[in-house]
């Protein structure tokens, strides 16, 4: 089952933030069929707010090259780069309101969060909420 469907079942909205322009975001959405909501932070202020790291060696250092080769052997191909090439990403499960349920900051390119951990955090949160309702 795809991640979007799993999120929908848990009533979690998928929102992406990119470092490019709205036009580049539109191209990305159409090219990859992204079905979540898309925002951009061209000045990287949203990335800085979440303490996401940035640096050339985080994109082209040994760890990211190793992950890149692994991805290529699995059939993944990187297209052209739009947005800040040195900015790293991250994943957060957040809301409603002032609740931060999961956080992961990529240390280098390819250092992605384990989505099973993200979904487990969502289940824990839902279970806790149900407990509070009783």
């Amino acid at each position, binding site marked *: 089952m795809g991640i979007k469907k799993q999120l929908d079942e848990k009533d979690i*909205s998928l929102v992406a933030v990119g470092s490019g322009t709205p036009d580049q975001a539109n191209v990305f959405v159409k090219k990859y069929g992204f079905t979540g909501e898309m925002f951009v932070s061209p000045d990287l202020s949203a990335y800085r707010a979440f303490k996401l790291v940035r640096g050339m060696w985080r994109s082209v250092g040994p760890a990211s090259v190793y992950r890149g080769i692994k991805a290529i052997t699995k059939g993944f191909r990187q297209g052209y780069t739009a947005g800040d090439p040195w900015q790293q990403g991250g994943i957060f499960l957040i809301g409603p309101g002032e609740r931060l349920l999961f956080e992961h900051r990529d240390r280098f390119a390819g250092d992605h969060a384990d989505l099973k951990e993200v979904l487990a955090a969502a289940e824990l949160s839902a279970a806790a909420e149900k407990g509070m309702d009783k």
Partner: protein
Amino acid sequence: MRYNDLKPRISGVTVIKEQGEAVSLESIWESRVVLLAFLRHFG
């Protein structure tokens, strides 16, 4: 990081919708649970 640590950092930060409209970052998860994915780049 706790939300209280994040709160002053996100205050006043805006992001731009695909259509070009600026919105408060915090408003995105104000009333719902969101998986917020920061992309490394487009492509």
